[in-house]
């Protein structure tokens, strides 16, 4: 009886049932009204019609009548719906019934024939559909007209049908295949076949995989491919679970599977999540079966009871374990479960879900037919090598190569992220805020290497995770004020894992907590927390994956696929990786500098530096010895020179500093540089150094002090090839100027210019640079007045980005006269001309990627720093960097070891970009 009701066969029953129900409803309504009146009377609230005014009475009757009318209408609708369902079910079941009848009245051999006949029918339909679709492929530009022509010929070839039929034969014994037999005709089937064929020609990797593998008779291969990413052996775990007699140990195995499942939920790969959830469902079902079997009450259960129990358990487990990485999909599945659970007889929800299931099976099968037809076309068209043909047609080799590289990126990236030690200054934002920033950068990077990472991550998950990390830190005794908090990538991952696995109740609770009151999180902060675009990356020191991505890019551009085809193939269809590529080019290779250490020329292979920056004749030392790196004072101190030699140099340095001090030149730090690279007599070296010091003092008195700004000389670096060049070199390379604090920012430009103008006019380089310098001044002024002063300087950072971000041609170019910058570049092996070019590029990228903070931007745009007066001036470099005096001071004062500063960021990026440009691999 139940079956006939569900299938719509029991319409009389349903009609009678609904009519009876309607009558019962009317009776109940009368009874309810009566009961209510009695209750109201007892409470002294007599609202019976008799006690009310006529108007109230009329209203009361009208309400009651309306309710009854509505009930009758609902019942009538249900009766009509039941009739409609019956008709639909009949129509849908007609073909199925025919086949079912054939199946019931036939031998297994005849049944096979029936199936085969239907399969052939489907194959014919698919083959008839294909020519039109192939023509459409040409119209859409997916194939050439020549390929279209060949494919059309192939479809008409005498053996096309047998090829397709053979393909289907390979599938015939599969579990779902037989279902096609009852459905392989009709308009819906035709539409589905069309889509199946289209899917085979869509050019996507899975489609090609299916078509290609099927073409080679490798149905098993396809199944293997589906499971390719399997991270652990499901069956092995289940086997262990079954063999383990101890319930607690069984629970421990279950716990491991639960962890694996939660990990996969976070990582967001659908196939892996399915495998993990399958394992968990199976394990839970097994465990419940085990516990159930120990209960003596159920010893005498029948097979039916046992199976019903297991179906119930499995179903329940499926409901509690999310199966999809997509929130929307999980919601639909929940709706399905809920509607099936609460289904009422008249709603037919169950019938609709049945329809959906059958239609899914049909469609899936037709999709495979499409792949079969695709195989036939490809294999005939391109000389019997379907895989090669598909590759030739759709460039799948590039795609495959790209996929390989992406997998490599993901693997290496995940490893690097897990092992990285993240650090964040606490400062005013507090521990929670610091962990917030850390998690923010971590999630961004996870999503760079895996776009599906934590796909359903919400604000509440993040709040939980940062709070969890904060509690851990406080437990460890981390101070709440100034300082640095640290966490490994693995710890951040664990925190996010916990955060994303909180239940709905906890989500609501956190949502309420942060919605108002003292834990309120503002809209701006919410927006920041949920913004996981690369552009919102916070702390460059926590950048782990840029180098890995750069390597991948290198492999793609110079690897087997050549000429960047793979890059284009990959990134043209994927906006995410397209963005990621921008990061490679822009932010990228911070790791490059981290790898070799800051200012660590000596740590990097010598040959690379020589290749980048050949030493000019001018810069060669007095003797014929080769140019070598410029060791800093600290490096000298840490070098392996003999103590005696070291002590001698130290004394010399002290003498020089004393001399400078006596002359009124305040010294912050000094380097004797190449002086010490002159091999041989230490006394000779000392003599040169002292003479250079005299020249420095003379230069200071002549050019700097006269300027009336009393600057401090902070650093000197004697690296000249000879005394005759000292003066020039001291100014361009060796003299750092610190503007006294009393000097206003507005005066900076003019004062700075004065210094160098004076120097230029008096130095030995005058003859070489005077003409060029004049040109520079003009061009500098032009740039300042037209581009910067009028258009850029008045803008706030937000306005600037809004105006120029889309315009990649904007040139806010740069020239630097910061000796510290120059030294950084020099030690990075970047020549002056390269430095300018790269800096220009760098600033563009920094702005486009929003890497410069608001404060830094405000500094960057206000001042010009000119470096057009050095002896190696290149008139082809017209760039100017604008920076304010305050920033200049800050930059110079900044500790070189602090990577987070603007100076460090710029120099590391320049170094990295330069390296990328000059690396032979790229």
């Amino acid at each position, binding site marked *: 009886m139940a079956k006939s009701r569900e299938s719509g066969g029991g319409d009389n029953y349903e009609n009678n049932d609904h009519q009876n129900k309607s009558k019962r409803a009317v009776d109940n309504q009368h009874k309810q009204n009566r009961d209510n009146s009695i209750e109201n009377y007892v409470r002294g609230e007599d609202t019976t019609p008799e006690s009310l005014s006529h108007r109230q009475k009329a209203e009361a009757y009208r309400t009651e009548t309306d309710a009854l009318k509505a009930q009758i209408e609902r019942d009538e609708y249900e009766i009509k719906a039941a009739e409609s369902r019956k008709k639909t079910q009949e129509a849908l079941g007609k073909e199925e019934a025919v086949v079912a009848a054939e199946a019931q009245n036939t031998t297994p051999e005849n049944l096979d024939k029936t199936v085969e006949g239907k399969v052939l029918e489907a194959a014919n339909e698919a083959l008839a559909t294909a020519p039109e679709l192939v023509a459409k492929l040409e119209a859409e530009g997916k194939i050439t007209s020549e390929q279209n022509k060949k494919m059309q010929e192939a479809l008409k070839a005498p053996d096309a049908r047998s090829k397709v039929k053979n393909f289907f034969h390979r599938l015939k014994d599969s579990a779902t295949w037989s279902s096609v037999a009852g459905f392989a005709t009709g308009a819906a089937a035709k*539409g589905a076949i069309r889509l199946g064929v289209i899917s085979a020609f869509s050019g996507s990797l899975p489609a090609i995989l299916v078509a290609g593998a099927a073409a080679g008779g490798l149905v098993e291969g396809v199944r293997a491919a*589906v499971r390719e990413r399997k991270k652990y052996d499901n069956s092995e775990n289940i086997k262990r679970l079954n063999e383990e007699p101890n319930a607690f140990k069984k629970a421990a195995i279950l716990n491991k599977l639960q962890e694996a499942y939660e990990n996969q939920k976070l990582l967001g790969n659908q196939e892996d999540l399915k495998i993990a959830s399958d394992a968990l469902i199976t394990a839970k079902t097994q465990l*419940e079966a085990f516990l159930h*079997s120990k209960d003596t009450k159920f010893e005498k259960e029948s097979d039916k009871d046992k199976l019903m129990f297991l179906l119930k358990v499995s179903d329940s487990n499926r409901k509690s374990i999310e199966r999809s990485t997509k929130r929307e999909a999980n919601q639909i599945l929940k709706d399905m479960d809920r509607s099936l659970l609460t289904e009422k007889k008249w709603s037919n929800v169950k019938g609709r879900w049945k*329809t959906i299931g059958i239609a*899914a099976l049909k*469609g899936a099968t037709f999709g495979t037919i499409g792949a079969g037809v695709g195989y036939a076309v490809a294999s005939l068209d391109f000389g019997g090598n379907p895989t090669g043909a598909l590759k030739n047609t759709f460039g799948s080799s590039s795609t495959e190569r790209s996929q390989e590289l992406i997998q490599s990126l993901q693997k290496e990236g995940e490893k690097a992220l897990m092992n990285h030690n993240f650090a964040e200054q606490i400062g005013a934002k507090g521990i929670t805020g610091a962990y917030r920033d850390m998690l923010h950068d971590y999630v961004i990077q996870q999503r760079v290497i895996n776009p599906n990472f934590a796909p359903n991550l919400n604000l509440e998950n993040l709040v939980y995770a940062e709070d969890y990390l904060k509690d851990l830190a406080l437990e460890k005794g981390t101070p709440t004020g100034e300082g640095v908090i640290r966490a490994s990538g693995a710890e951040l991952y664990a925190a996010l894992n916990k955060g994303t696995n909180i239940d709905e109740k906890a989500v609501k609770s956190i949502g309420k907590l942060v919605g108002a009151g003292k834990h309120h999180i503002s809209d701006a902060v919410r927006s920041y927390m949920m913004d996981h675009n690369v552009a919102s990356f916070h702390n460059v020191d926590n950048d782990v994956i840029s180098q890995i991505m750069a390597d991948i890019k290198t492999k793609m551009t110079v690897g087997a696929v050549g000429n960047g085809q793979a890059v284009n193939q990959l990134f043209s269809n994927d906006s995410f990786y397209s963005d990621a590529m921008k990061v490679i080019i822009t932010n990228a290779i911070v790791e490059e500098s981290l790898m070799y250490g800051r200012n660590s020329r000596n740590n990097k292979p010598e040959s690379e530096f020589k290749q980048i920056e050949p030493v000019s004749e001018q810069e060669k030392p007095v003797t014929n010895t080769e140019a070598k790196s410029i060791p800093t004072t600290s490096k000298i101190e840490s070098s392996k020179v003999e103590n005696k030699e070291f002590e001698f140099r130290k004394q010399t340095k002290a003498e020089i500093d004393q001399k400078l001090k006596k002359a009124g030149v305040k010294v912050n730090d000094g380097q004797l540089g190449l002086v010490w690279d002159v091999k041989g007599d230490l006394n000779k070296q000392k003599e040169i150094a002292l003479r250079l010091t005299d020249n420095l003092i003379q230069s200071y008195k002549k050019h700097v002090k006269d300027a009336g700004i009393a600057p401090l000389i902070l650093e000197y670096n004697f690296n000249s090839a000879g005394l005759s060049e000292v003066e020039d070199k001291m100014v361009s390379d060796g003299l750092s100027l610190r503007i006294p604090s009393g000097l206003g920012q507005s005066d900076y430009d003019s004062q700075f210019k004065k210094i160098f103008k004076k120097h230029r006019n008096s130095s030995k380089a005058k003859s070489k640079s005077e003409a060029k310098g004049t040109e520079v001044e003009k061009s500098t002024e032009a740039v300042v007045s037209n581009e910067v002063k009028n258009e850029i300087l008045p803008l706030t950072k937000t306005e600037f980005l809004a105006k120029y971000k889309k315009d990649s041609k904007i040139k806010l170019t740069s020239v630097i006269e910061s000796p510290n910058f120059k030294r950084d570049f020099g030690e990075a092996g970047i020549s002056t001309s390269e430095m300018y070019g790269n800096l220009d590029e760098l600033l563009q990228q920094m702005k486009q990627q929003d890497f410069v903070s608001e404060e830094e931007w405000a500094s960057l745009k206000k001042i010009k720093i000119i470096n057009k007066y050095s002896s190696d001036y290149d008139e082809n470099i017209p760039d100017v960097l604008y920076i304010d005096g305050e920033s200049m001071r800050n930059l110079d004062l900044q500790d070189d070891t602090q990577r987070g500063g603007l100076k460090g960021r710029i120099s590391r990026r320049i170094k990295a970009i330069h390296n990328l440009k000059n690396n032979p691999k790229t």
Partner: protein
Amino acid sequence: MIIQDRINKMLNELGVNDVSAEEKLELTQHLIDHFNKIITETLIINLDDDQLKKFKEYSDKDSEADLDAHISELAASIPGLQFKIEDAIQTEFENLRSAKQVLDK
């Protein structure tokens, strides 16, 4: 019905022998419903965002006939879905079989 034939084989392999014809029919219906859910679930978890929207629209608004056609089309456009469905059915069948063996011990 061919699917029913398949279910019969499954019942045998699950070791469900000691049942009356009426009970067998009831179990068959339950198994069909159960696997139907698994097929539907496999479809849903393989849909992309756009397809999920369509699915929701179809399942909420379509007539029975339209629903069948639309869902078929949706499923046909997912490469390899048939294999994934087979895999899901097989996995669940193995799950039930091994759990049944635990109960039978």
